């Protein structure tokens, strides 16, 4: 019978996970070229670490001070390099580039060709692929020119990942389109990013509300010496006014809030810096038309809430392989956003709800946002999310509130709601939670709170 070697190491430190197999590999490869006295056999290793630790790639950002405080070992993997150990059956990007020429004969690409397909996870159902054309991206570059008048020396930094349209269209494409630099932040901690603002002279910041909030907390612990920030843009989720004020105090810049969708290649409305209206998402950007309509598609007068429609060259080509969805969403060049809102006398846009989130109960249309705002005014409530649910199909919708807070009881919340809300708006059920599920951009994922939500991260056995 074939004999393999077994090496048991139950007192390992994290470096052994790397060093032991590496040593065996090295000896086996070297053994072929030089005369080795002993030949290494096929080997299995079994290891247990004696202390907590992490084995991380060379590009991972680790707070080593904190790690040593916690008694944790951190070991970095060496860079793979050419010809090094790599996952089987894959191609190395670096080698692919090295082998290829640096001159490229341009392909015939038209402005109407699709440049990117970006998936949005809707409030219900499967994600949809939003087809964005070259024209869409360029229109967005033009549209934001006036809101962020840049100089060639400007340095953008996007804390928003480029897989999100806001990071991609503004933080990357618009920055390069204007000949500015884009400072790349692959992974950030508020502390290290504060240093980066100084070191890299970041002048234009692309971020989301939670990130601004984290930066504020960090700057209180360690004030920065000099800020080069000229423009700070916030999007993807509503920005509390108190964050704008506190940020201005610490960094000397007013955060500009914008509104947009993946379907509009990011921003279509922006709050002008000199005339910010709190609570509003501002005025339409250059090249975007926005109107508010009722259920029959008739435009509504000011201050009346209805569905928000958008027209402009930044509006998507359609949903990939979904002609029916596309027809329902794009009509006569207008994008039906599914967002509910209104415009005031000066044309400022206010977003109140997502159409699909509206709860219909007892013949009333109930805004979950209105209930959430009331809940958040309770001193012990930190965060709240309200959804509608049906006990059974055909039954009427009920209201369920999810609450994050300190020392609370559901009864206490209910008593509070009864005092502050019309009886039909009082939640039928309260659930206390440690945190609310959120997307990469900090939006509460209501669909994960709804009944019957299926977590797609699991791989099910019967899938194939």
């Amino acid at each position, binding site marked *: 019978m074939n004999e*393999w*070697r*077994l*090496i048991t190491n*139950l007192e390992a430190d994290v*470096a052994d*996970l790397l060093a032991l*197999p590496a*040593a065996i590999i090295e*000896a086996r490869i070297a053994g072929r070229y030089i005369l080795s006295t002993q030949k290494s056999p*096929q*080997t299995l290793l*079994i*290891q*247990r670490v004696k202390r*907590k630790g*992490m084995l*991380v*790639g*060379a590009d*991972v950002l680790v707070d080593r001070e904190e790690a040593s405080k916690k008694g944790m070992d951190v070991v970095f*993997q060496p*860079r793979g390099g050419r010809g*090094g150990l*790599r*996952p*089987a*059956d*894959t*191609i190395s*990007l670096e080698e*692919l580039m090295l*082998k*290829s*020429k*640096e001159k*490229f004969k*341009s*392909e015939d690409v038209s402005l109407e060709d699709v*440049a990117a397909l*970006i*998936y949005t996870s809707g409030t219900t159902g499967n994600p949809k692929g939003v087809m964005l054309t*070259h*024209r869409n991206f360029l229109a967005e570059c033009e549209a934001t020119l006036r809101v962020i008048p840049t100089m060639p020396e400007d340095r953008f930094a996007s804390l928003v990942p*480029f*897989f999100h349209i806001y990071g991609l269209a503004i933080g990357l*494409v618009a920055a*390069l389109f204007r000949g500015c*630099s884009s400072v*790349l932040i*692959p992974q*950030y901690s508020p502390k290290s990013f504060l240093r980066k603002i100084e070191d890299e002279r970041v002048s234009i910041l692309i971020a989301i509300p939670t990130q601004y909030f984290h930066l504020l907390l960090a700057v209180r612990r360690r004030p920065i010496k000099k800020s080069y920030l000229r423009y700070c843009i916030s999007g993807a989720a509503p920005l509390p006014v108190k964050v704008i004020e506190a940020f201005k105090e610490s960094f000397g810049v007013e955060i500009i809030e914008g509104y947009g969708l993946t379907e509009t290649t990011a921003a279509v409305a922006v709050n002008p810096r000199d005339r910010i209206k709190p609570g509003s998402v501002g005025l339409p950007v250059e090249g975007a038309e926005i109107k508010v309509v009722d259920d029959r598609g008739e435009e509504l007068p000011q201050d009346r809430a209805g569905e928000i429609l958008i027209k402009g060259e930044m509006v998507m080509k359609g949903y*990939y*392989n979904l002609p029916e969805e596309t027809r329902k969403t794009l009509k006569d060049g207008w994008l039906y956003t599914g967002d509910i809102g209104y415009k005031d006398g000066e044309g400022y846009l206010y977003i109140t709800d997502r159409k699909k989130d509206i709860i219909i109960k007892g013949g009333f249309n109930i805004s979950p946002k209105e209930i959430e705002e009331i809940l958040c005014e309770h001193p012990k409530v930190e965060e709240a999310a309200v959804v509608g649910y049906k006990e059974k199909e055909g039954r009427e919708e009920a209201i369920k509130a999810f609450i994050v807070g300190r020392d609370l009881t559901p009864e206490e919340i209910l008593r509070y709601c009864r005092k502050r809300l019309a009886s039909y708006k009082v939640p039928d059920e309260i659930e206390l939670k440690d*945190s609310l599920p959120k997307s990469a951009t900090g939006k509460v994922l209501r669909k994960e709170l709804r009944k019957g939500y299926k*977590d797609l*991260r*699991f*791989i099910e*056995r019967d899938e194939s």
Partner: protein
Amino acid sequence: MNLSRLLEEKAEEYPKRTALVYEGKNITFQELNRSVNRLANGLKNLGIEKGDRVAIMLPNSPEFVYSFFACQRLGAVAVPFNTMYKGGEILYILKDSGAKAIITLTNFVPLINEIKPELPNLKYIITTGERSLTFADPDSTRFVQGVLSKSIFKDLDDAYRKTGEALVQGFQELGLKGTWYKHRGSLRIGGKKLAGFYFSEIEDLYLLNMVCFLVPLHTEDFFSVLWVPPEVKDKVLEPLTSAEEELGRRPSDEEFKKAVLGALEKQFGIQLKEGGLTRDERFGYEKQKTLAKKR
């Protein structure tokens, strides 16, 4: 103008101006344009054509920028998606878009490998970056590794299949009856991951790396030194389970070793003999260890 020509034009206009700043290094428009062209040519050589979809699962790094604009060069469609996506989420996007290639971080390869058989259109996995993350915990994690000749197996699929089957046997032996294995890497109970393994390669050798969770892995300490926004923490890791959660008790190290190694012995028709490092290996080990600790 369109996105295909954008960088070419900028590189002509101001070649020396900085386009990207990454980890303190500046990349000029000219350098960026050249890198993008190289990757575009590389993808073209693989057979990526106008209209083809190329998935991008990368953080904000120069490689993301090269990938996105290389797609534009070719008239291909970039499909960037969330680097925190797991299993079914990735499967849905790759399936729906019909992506021909995916450009991703080396450490995400196991995630893609596991769903690849369901993606007939996906021809190439292109990898970059050094962002692997392995948590080691005295109570929870046990590592089984192997340095094996490729010649033991017919091909990589065979290596994954045989090892996967053996590990399922081993875990069932431990009493974890619900363990199942689909393809390339993850051993699951229900939809959750109990253990994972992957093969890397160098010359004619495979390196097997397997981690199994004996008790729930408490990740708070790990995340306190790797800054991840609190609200997305639970999305960074795949849903995990452990032997203790499934069994109602914690198997001892002896039991674990006996069951898993026994199954591997049976599968490969071999006998394991406890041993230590050879002299050459010990020398290499000291060197490797010094290197690992130096950083």
